[in-house]
């Protein structure tokens, strides 16, 4: 391996895209060549800066809603593949009026009160992506987390201290559940992250604790005082139920 060849393959090697034999040749060359080792150090420094920088843009919360609506509208207007002409679309709409109605119902329907499971799980999963921030306000102090929500949402979510029960407060963020704005209060228990979503209920009905699961995540949801609560985690359902009961008990 000479220097010219090394400069061609260094990046692929650092990115883990080369076979072990070539990797060994590269390592051997780097041991004996200060100039190429300098090149590698430069790349390592760049990688550190890229990792430290907040460079990835997360989709704004309203974009998902916007996309879902556009797709629903599109599916209702153009069920034929490949783009129908005007009269085809009209004919299809007539023929598929039942479908159209169903889609219209889906769009106009308020947030399901009793089954937010899949929606909160989707939001929870999204928050765990490396490109996203798990929390926007990071603090184990509930007197820091709670005031942070002030002026950002039109309700005041209670933030509880459950540290003596093994649940460490991580912080909070603004999020969304289906179409509505929600706050997420994040806790950690052992290695599990728990997102507690809170949003305004469409009807001020009290609902008892209900357990469900979706995509391998456990969900505990309930309603009280005009707010909906849903706790989501990959911890097992007993753990999430205990967490939910403690939340309620502190009321």
């Amino acid at each position, binding site marked *: 391996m000479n220097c010219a060849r090394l*400069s*061609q*393959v*260094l*990046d*692929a090697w650092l*990115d883990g*895209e080369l076979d072990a034999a070539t990797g060994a040749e590269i390592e051997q060359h780097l041991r004996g060549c200060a100039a190429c080792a300098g090149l590698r150090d*430069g*790349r390592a420094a*760049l*990688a550190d*800066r*890229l990792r*430290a*920088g*907040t*460079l*990835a*843009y*997360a*989709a*704004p919360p309203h*974009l*998902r809603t*916007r*996309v*879902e609506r*556009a*797709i*629903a509208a*599109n*599916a209702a207007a153009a069920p034929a*593949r490949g783009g129908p002409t005007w009269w085809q679309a009209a004919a299809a709409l007539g023929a598929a009026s039942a479908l159209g109605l169903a889609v219209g119902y889906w769009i106009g329907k308020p947030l399901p009160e009793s089954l937010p499971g899949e929606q909160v799980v*989707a939001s929870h*999963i*999204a928050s765990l*992506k*490396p*490109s*996203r921030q798990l929390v926007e306000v990071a603090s184990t102090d509930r007197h820091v987390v709670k005031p942070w929500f002030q002026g950002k949402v039109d309700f005041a979510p209670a933030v509880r201290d459950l540290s003596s029960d093994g649940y460490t407060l991580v912080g909070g963020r603004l999020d969304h559940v289906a179409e509505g704005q929600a706050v997420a209060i994040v806790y950690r228990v052992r290695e599990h992250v728990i997102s507690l979503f809170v949003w305004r209920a469409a009807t001020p009905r009290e609902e008892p604790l209900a357990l469900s699961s979706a995509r391998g995540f456990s969900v505990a949801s309930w309603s009280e005082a005009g707010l909906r609560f849903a706790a989501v985690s990959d911890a097992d359902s007993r753990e999430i139920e205990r967490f939910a009961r403690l939340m309620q008990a502190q009321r």
Partner: protein
Amino acid sequence: MTARFEREVLTHLDAAYNLARWLTGENAAAEDAVQEACLRAFRFFDGQRGESPKAWFMTIVRNTCLDGLKASRSAHHEEYDDEIHGASAHDGPDVAAARDSDARSLHACIAGLPREYREVIVLRELEGLAYREIGAIVGVPLGTVMSRLARGRDLLQRRLLAQHRRLAP
């Protein structure tokens, strides 16, 4: 909307927006492009059985962005300039929120890279995609992904160095 579409495509909405935002340089244009890309993806999703739904979706996102950029370029009757366009990106509120000048200068340097280097850097460094996936998205062979990443990182390092010298002589 099917559960499979939700699971295999919409789950990559952040990645899609990230790529679109870096390609277009604007929030509104990125949102429009992502929405259009989702509609296109939804239309052709049934016939799609690729091994990487993410790479497939990101290909559509990229093509949609390039279509949009082409359209706005011809609408303005002027040559699209990556340097100028990229530089405008650091006026946005997202960047104002960047905590320190180090992050800001890094952001500006990436935004100022020519598109062919910027996109492979975003896909590799921010999305962590494999060369094979990047090649599929950008539509170039593996060797080209390799050389563009190497050249892109060279450029980035050089520009960061130049900026550092300018700011701290």
